[in-house]
Structures are given as structure tokens and as C-alpha cells.
């Protein structure tokens, strides 16, 4: 199989609610990616688009919408949805299209506009869609799921409130150095520990909100485009995982979970990362930078274990020992993470890939990790969605 490279990336900075429409944000990200890749629009041979689920017909056909802005050329355009791992699906499909020989150069993008209110049920058929039950009878906003798991972890492994707060301290330090982040204020441990509980043991600063943002990545196997690109980044593997029977994690939108584990926690991400390790021949020990989905401080800790960077229950020690800091053995989320960005559903997995690529390309200024050669972007979506992308330079 031929090698596939990232040659262009673009972002629209993360922000809060906006009256502007998703296509405007998408166009900014795609324009930036084209400029970075130094190619014209007609070089794009396929578009793999993340669905903007609150955008009606246009949001569900976001790829067609984007194409009409830049000029319709008849190429394959496919729209994907994998909850918060949607961006992983788009880059994986762009990669597969090239690896399969269908195209040489493809665009993956996603854009999301934060809704004015809360995210909630999207249908009214409780038999078909248990999400209806969790909202109407369960009283279960997303962070409760994380809090339930976090409490189990504290009981089992002794994770402390200080550990949870320390994650925010680190993320806010890095976020303050990232011009594309939404939240740039730096917090002390004391400030975090004084913030109100949303769902005990998780505090306001320890969970991430919903944001507006857009991201675009151009991948290619075209030798000419690779040779003229500025520090092209090789994709060693980009994989998707789903859940494994017996996963004890209580999944968002579920009302129950197994009491006896027969699979790893967050098995969708276990599966995605193990597929990526196997396919790339790169293991956790080889990774210089990790972007993981810190939807909450709990996620930050558990993902280090799920993805095999330490054994179960040992992530707190990694954090306390400073191993996950910039300058440590495994810098985690130098971007500032979800904590500094918030979730922009169909864009966030691509933004993680872009942060990794920017780090490998030495473009990260005050938050630059020195000498990084291998980076891994790990994402997570509700109801059994996950993706892993391993890159190198």
C-alpha cells in the first residue's frame, strides 16, 4: 500500500455560539488548508465531510454544501457521522480512498456551530432510540455519565480531587498559549478546586462545554504535491473502533452497563488504538505527543490507560510525576485539549490531528514540544465511537 501524507491543514479558531452558519466556518478552515498545501481547489479529488447534525438538510449534506462554495467538480463527496469521533471517520475515509487507489488527494473537514441551548434528544421514539428515555426519564445530561465513572475510579484507584483539578491547571496553561483555543485563561489548583460542582466529583472547570469550530485536513499520495509541501506528515495509521461486548463503561445515552467486565473500559478506544498500533508497527512507547479527548478530567486519566500508556490505575501517578507535561516523557494535549477548546462535534477529531501535525511540523510557538517525531490523536464519541490517528515526520 502506498504512503499517505498530510500536506495541508486549516482551522477556524474555536469559539462560543455564533449567528454565522456552519458553511462559513468550514470555508475558512478549507481555505487555510488549501493555502497550507499550496494547491488549488481542483486538485481535491474527494471530499469526506463530517455531518453537522443540527444543520438540517444542509448540515447532513455538509460536503455537498462545501463543494458548491468552492466550485462543484463532480468528485466523490461522502458525509459521515460518528458522534464526537466524526472527524476520525472523515480522515479514515480520505485515507482509505487514497490507499485503495480511488483518488490521489482528498479533503476531510468538519464544522460545527454550538447550538444556543443544550444538546438533547433528536427523536421521540423511545423504543427505537433509548436517548429519548435518558432525557425524559433518566435525568441524565452527558457529564453525569463521566461523574459515575469518575467516582468508581476514585474508589478503586484513589484518584483525588486534586488530581482532577491538576488536569485543568495543565490544560489551561497550554490553552493560554494556543491562539486557536476558545478558553485562554490560566487557572491555579486553588481556583479549580473552588469552582462549583456540576456533578460531584466533577467541577465546572473539569468538564468541557460545546463550542463552534471548524477544521480541514488535506491528505495525498501524489509525489509532486508531497515534494512541494512544507514538512509533509506521514499517516502511519488512521483507524476506527467500536465497542466490545462486556465493556463495563456506562455509555452516554445508555441506561445500564455490565456489572462484570468482559472487555476493557472504553473498549471502542481500546480497539481503535490497538488497531492503529498493529497497523503502524508503532507502540505507545514510541509516541512523543498524545492528543486525547479530555471531555472531563476523568477522561484525561483513563485514556492514558485505555490506550496503553500505563497500566490501569497508574495514570494519576503519571500526572503527579509530571510525565504528561510538555517537557515530560509523554506530553499530553499541548493544544490545551478539549478543556481549552470545548467540543465542536464534527471538527474536533480533525483539530486533534492538526495539533499533532503542527507539533511535528514545529509550528506551535510557545506550546511547542521539542524534537517530536511521532504523534497520536485519540478521539472518543458516545455510543461506541472512536478513532486513532498515528502520524510521524
Amino acid at each position, binding site marked *: 500500500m502506498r504512503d499517505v501524507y498530510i500536506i495541508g491543514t486549516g482551522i477556524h479558531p474555536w469559539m462560543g455560539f455564533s449567528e454565522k452558519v456552519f458553511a462559513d466556518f468550514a470555508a475558512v478552515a478549507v481555505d487555510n488548508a488549501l493555502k497550507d498545501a499550496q494547491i488549488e481547489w481542483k486538485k481535491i479529488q474527494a471530499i469526506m465531510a463530517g455531518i453537522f447534525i443540527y444543520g438540517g438538510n444542509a448540515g447532513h449534506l455538509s460536503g455537498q454544501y462545501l463543494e458548491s462554495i468552492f466550485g462543484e467538480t463532480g468528485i466523490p463527496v461522502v458525509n459521515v457521522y460518528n458522534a464526537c469521533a466524526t472527524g476520525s471517520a472523515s480522515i479514515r475515509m480520505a485515507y482509505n480512498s487514497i490507499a485503495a487507489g480511488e483518488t490521489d488527494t482528498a479533503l476531510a473537514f468538519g464544522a460545527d456551530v454550538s447550538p444556543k*441551548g*443544550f444538546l*438533547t*434528544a433528536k427523536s421521540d421514539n*423511545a*423504543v*427505537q432510540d*433509548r436517548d*429519548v*428515555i*435518558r*432525557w*425524559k*426519564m*433518566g*435525568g*441524565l*445530561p452527558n457529564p*453525569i455519565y463521566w*461523574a*459515575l*465513572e*469518575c*467516582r*468508581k475510579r476514585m*474508589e478503586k484507584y484513589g484518584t483525588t480531587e486534586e488530581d482532577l483539578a491538576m488536569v485543568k491547571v495543565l490544560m489551561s496553561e497550554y490553552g493560554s498559549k494556543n491562539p486557536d483555543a476558545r478558553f485562554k485563561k490560566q487557572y491555579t489548583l486553588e481556583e479549580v478546586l473552588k469552582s*462549583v*460542582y*456540576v*456533578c*460531584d*466529583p*466533577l467541577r465546572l472547570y473539569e468538564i468541557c462545554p460545546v463550542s463552534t469550530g471548524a477544521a480541514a485536513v488535506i491528505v495525498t499520495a501524489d509525489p509532486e504535491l508531497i515534494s512541494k509541501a512544507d514538512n509533509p506528515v506521514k499517516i502511519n495509521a488512521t483507524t476506527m473502533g467500536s465497542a466490545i*461486548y*462486556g465493556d463495563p463503561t*456506562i455509555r452516554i445515552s*445508555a*441506561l*445500564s*452497563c*455490565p*456489572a*462484570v467486565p468482559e472487555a476493557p473500559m472504553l473498549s471502542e478506544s481500546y480497539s481503535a488504538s490497538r488497531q492503529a498500533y498493529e497497523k503502524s508497527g508503532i507502540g505507545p512507547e514510541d509516541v512523543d505527543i498524545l492528543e486525547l479527548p479530555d471531555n472531563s478530567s476523568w477522561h484525561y486519566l483513563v485514556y492514558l490507560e485505555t490506550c496503553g500508556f500505563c497500566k490501569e490505575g497508574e495514570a494519576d501517578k503519571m500526572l503527579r510525576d509530571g510525565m504528561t507535561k510538555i517537557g515530560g516523557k509523554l506530553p499530553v494535549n499541548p493544544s490545551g485539549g478539549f478543556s481549552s477548546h470545548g467540543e465542536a462535534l464534527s471538527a474536533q477529531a480533525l483539530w486533534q490531528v492538526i495539533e499533532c501535525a503542527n507539533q511535528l511540523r514545529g509550528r506551535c510557538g510557545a506550546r511547542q514540544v521539542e524534537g517530536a517525531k511521532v504523534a497520536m490523536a485519540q478521539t472518543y464519541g458516545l455510543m461506541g465511537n472512536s478513532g486513532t490517528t498515528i502520524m510521524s515526520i
Partner: protein
Amino acid sequence: MENMANKVARIPNLVDWSTGEVRLMGAKCNSCGTYFFPKEHYQHRPDCSREGVEDVLFPKKGKLASYTIQYYPCPAPFKTENKITPYGIGLVEFENEKIQITGIITETDLKTLKIGMEMETTILEMFTNEEKQQVVTWAFKAVK
């Protein structure tokens, strides 16, 4: 038990009190042994023949496997007439069924919650509907 006359679940087929006890309604696959809640959300073991799925009532009692305290109102379509925040919400483990089920905890002293404590299934009155019925959801409370 509570007086269950004139009460109706907001969504059917989840909680039952016809036996005189409040119990959660689920299903069991007799081929792979997995219990489901809600019963329509199948989660079979891979390669299960999926034969013999039957309705079950979970036991009234289980033990608290985890919990949180929610400080903000749950957004619509969740609906209660009375302010219930902060409210406890827990995962209650049914030991033989090897399943943990979420539910709001109808406890006023949330400081007493503790992993491992014995809980029983109950109902929470949410609001009165147009037919003057009390619309309820399932919930858990500590066994005193």
C-alpha cells in the same frame, strides 16, 4: 409500598408496580444470558443465536455501584414540577443479573450516599398530566 393508584410512567415498559412492588422491566436472552435494560436495546454476545429473549422484572433491591450529585437542572424534555436539584443519581447493581442500572436517587441527605450501600427501586413523581395523573419515573432509595 407507596400508593400507586393514579400514577403513570412517562414512557411505558420500563417500570412496573403491578406485582405490588416497584420493579424495573427488562429482558433476558436465554441464548447468551445477557440482561437488557431497556428491554428493546439488545446487546447480545457476539454470535449469539438471539433465541428465547424474554421479559423479566429485575429484583427490587440491589447495591449502589456508583453515584453522583447533579447540581443543575436536567434540560428538557426532562420535566419535574418541583425543583429537585441537587439530586443524586446512581448506578445500582443487580448481582445475579450482572447488570448496573442508572436511576435518580430520592434521598434528601445526599451526604449519606456510599458505594456498596443497599438500595431499593421506587418511583419519583415528576408532574401531573392533563388527565390529572401523576407522571412518574423509576428511581432508587436507600434501604433503611
